[in-house]
């Protein structure tokens, strides 16, 4: 019975939604492009910020075993950002280099634990971390690019569902069902208002916050909806519920943003790309407007093959020259 459950689960997670269609191919590539784009953005943001750090307050991840303080006060963070960028770009464009996603993930983890060694444990970048890890593992264990993308996407969906559901369990274990009491939201709103004041130098409550502050029942309702969404988030594992659950989770993040001023931008963009059935939209658009996508793709492949031939030819020439 357990075996059949896992078989059904893996089919739901890993089987492509509309196999052998252009829409599915573009959907998978969008997921890859999102991962690469945000990996590069974070790599450089963290790289430049780490230059101003000089002390480790709270070691996270591998930093509990490696003293990352040796990277502080050096240009290592910028070199690391450069390497991560190079590796993910190569993996994106060249199928033979896709294993570099795995190497990039290790460097990216090191980059994160160096940057976030100051006492904060942020979670807004976890989505990008999961995406890169999924692509890394997929690229190492599966030969064909389409299989590594299939694995990567299913892997992210699995850990997203798991993460939100464990978050709900954490709340129920640490506080109990009284977690949803509206006065807890008041306390968090005050806390986050101090963060905004510190960041921007000014703060004022919006209308949703004003209503929540004046009406404890409304605040309680808000927390109840949030907890229920998190609790049932594991339903994203199953195809029939996936889109609806992702919309509910995006709504949860909008709610967190409007009440507590916390915006997980990359997380929300990731949810938007991964969770909505873009393959259907793309397939419909191609059919409806009779777009010759195959022609564009074969032209792009020709260009890529020429670049590969050019680089191979030059590296061979370099070797023969050395000989």
């Amino acid at each position: 019975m357990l075996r059949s459950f896992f078989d059904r689960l893996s089919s739901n997670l890993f089987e492509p939604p509309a196999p052998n269609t252009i829409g599915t191919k573009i959907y998978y590539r969008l997921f890859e492009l999102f991962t690469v784009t945000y990996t590069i953005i974070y790599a450089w943001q963290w790289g430049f910020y780490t230059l101003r750090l000089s002390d480790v307050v709270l070691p996270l991840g591998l930093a509990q075993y490696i003293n990352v303080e040796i990277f502080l006060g050096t240009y290592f963070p910028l070199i690391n950002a450069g390497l991560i960028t190079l590796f993910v770009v190569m993996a994106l464009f060249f199928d033979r280099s896709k294993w570099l996603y795995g190497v990039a993930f290790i460097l990216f983890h090191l980059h994160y634990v160096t940057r976030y060694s100051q006492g904060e444990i942020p979670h807004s970048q976890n989505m990008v971390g999961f995406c890169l890890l999924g692509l890394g593992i997929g690229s190492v264990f599966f030969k064909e690019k389409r299989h590594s993308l299939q694995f990567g996407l299913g892997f992210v969906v699995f850990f997203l569902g798991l993460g939100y559901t464990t978050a709900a369990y954490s709340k129920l274990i640490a506080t109990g069902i009284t977690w949803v009491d509206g006065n807890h939201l008041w306390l968090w709103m005050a806390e986050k208002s101090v963060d905004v004041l510190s960041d921007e130098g000014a703060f004022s409550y919006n209308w949703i916050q004003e209503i929540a502050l004046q009406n404890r029942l409304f605040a309680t309702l808000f927390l109840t909806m949030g907890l229920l969404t998190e609790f049932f988030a594991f339903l994203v594992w199953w195809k029939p519920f996936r889109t609806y659950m992702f919309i509910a989770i995006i709504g949860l993040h909008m709610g967190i943003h409007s009440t507590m001023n916390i915006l997980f931008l990359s997380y929300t963009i990731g949810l938007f790309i991964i969770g909505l059935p873009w393959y259907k939209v793309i397939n419909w658009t191609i059919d409806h407007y009779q777009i010759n996508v195959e022609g564009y793709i074969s032209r792009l492949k020709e260009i890529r093959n020429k670049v590969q031939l050019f680089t191979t030819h030059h590296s061979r020439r370099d070797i023969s020259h050395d000989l």
Partner: protein
Amino acid sequence: MEREIISKMKRTLLVVFLINAILVSTHKGEFWPFSIFPMFSQAGNPWSRGLVIEVDDMNRKDLWETKSLSSIDDRVVALREHGIDDIDYANFISKTKNWDEERIQALRNLFQIEQQGDAKWLASRVTGHLTEQDSVVVKVIPMFLVTSDTTYKNPDLFK
């Protein structure tokens, strides 16, 4: 062929899931990117954050006094304008237990205070808690006055 691939994906996911379970259970729920996402799990607990206040007159009488948020909100330094992460600063000022020379220097580095001209910044901790009457009380506690060449400690806290 496809079934074999899906089966291999299932086994790979299972192995990673087990690694995830081992890592988060032995590292207090966090081993990036793996996490049980425990943020906001403890509701109603008092919190501690940070603010930096611009000081015009270093000799003002209430410099080191604990204040309310409304009395200082027009003098708060916007950390974003100085390239400082407000969450980093909040954690730094609220979680540091032992303020030795090295840690004070790290605070100065975070501010890059030598590059801020003749700025006089009052690094403060902000605390909040729920009262028995279910209202929220927020207090601003000055910790250090940081200038381009000196760091002054709050004499009431560091005796």
